[in-house]
């Protein structure tokens, strides 16, 4: 695809998506991160999320339901073996009694242990920071599940049917949050959980490009104190938490 036609496509796509919120002087491609279908994911972008636990409501599981719906995760009635790509963890500080609720999913580390341990290279990090499982080469050894400090990986324990066309899933492979990679590649510029949280009026989950200093997430990260979960491990997760 020539650069001219790519620009033409991007212009339309981004204008349609971002609409009137585009600030003047900002290059469209950096704002929405949209790519043409033939363009590779780029290392200039690093997708990430900021989760503000002060805005997250205890008891609200809209992000979880939205994720399950978007990715076709079904409840089999066997919670111990059912996959969970995102879950709400209720936490209480032992010393002070301070309570919070926070969604936890794959933290999309810059140095992911799951990628280090995967014998076949099925667990991998895409150029734009999204950590994924290539189900075509996953042999189902579950070493990544052992290695993930965030309990973010699930093993598919049974035969599946009626998968979503954009989210292939199957028995015997390991899986986890894809940061809604199909939506990202489509140029949606958001994830199902972030959308649902916004629709619920909380806006506790902010998705964006943390490499782009002008993105909304980068601005918020500059303003709010935030931290990485298990920062002691030095994995540089792409998901950050504020308020806890």
């Amino acid at each position, binding site marked *: 695809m020539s650069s001219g036609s790519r620009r033409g496509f991007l212009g339309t796509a981004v204008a349609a998506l971002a609409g009137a919120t585009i600030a003047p002087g900002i290059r469209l491609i950096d704002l929405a991160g949209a790519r043409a279908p033939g363009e590779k994911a780029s290392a200039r972008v690093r997708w990430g999320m900021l989760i503000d636990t002060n805005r997250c409501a205890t008891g609200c599981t809209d992000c979880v339901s939205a994720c399950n719906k978007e990715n076709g995760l079904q409840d089999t009635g066997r919670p111990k073996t059912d996959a969970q790509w995102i879950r709400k963890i209720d936490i209480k500080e032992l010393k002070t009694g301070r309570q919070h609720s926070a969604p936890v999913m794959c933290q999309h580390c810059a140095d992911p242990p799951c990628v280090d341990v995967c014998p076949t290279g099925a667990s991998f990090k895409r150029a734009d920071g999204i950590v994924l499982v290539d189900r075509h080469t996953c042999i189902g050894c579950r070493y990544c599940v052992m290695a993930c400090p965030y309990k973010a990986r699930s093993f598919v324990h049974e035969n599946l049917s009626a998968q979503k*066309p954009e989210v292939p899933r199957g028995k015997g492979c390991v899986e986890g949050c894809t940061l809604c990679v199909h939506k990202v590649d489509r140029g949606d510029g958001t994830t199902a959980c972030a959308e649902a949280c916004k629709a619920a009026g909380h806006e506790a989950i902010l998705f964006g490009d943390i490499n782009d200093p002008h993105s909304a997430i980068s601005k918020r990260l500059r303003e709010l104190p935030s931290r990485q979960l298990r920062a002691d491990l030095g994995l540089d997760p792409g998901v950050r938490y504020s308020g806890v």
Partner: protein
Amino acid sequence: MLRFTGVFLLTLAAGLAFAADRVAKPVVVIEKPGRCVEDTALMRRDHMKLLVHQRDRTVREGVREKARSLSGCIDCHASAKTGSVLGAEGFCQSCHAYAGVQLDCFECHAAKPARAALGGAR
């Protein structure tokens, strides 16, 4: 001795021919006539190579060109009756059954186009 061998071979040949008849010929229904992404001969021989190439580009690099993607194939080749490429007369399954080649894609991938799978939503 020679005669016996001849009779034996004839019987064997007849048996094989009979066996071949019992395997249903693949049902190739092209419901959306027009050009595929490559020539028919090439697609018959090498569609799996194209798919594997595109699969790695899509999964690893995020390249999602519709034309050569598995979902592109399904969109075009799904049966009008069942909405699927699987089933006895499904475009993929009938041929794979005839050729005796394992069809692994649809353990994970949806066998119906996005529209049909979502029941018209979106």
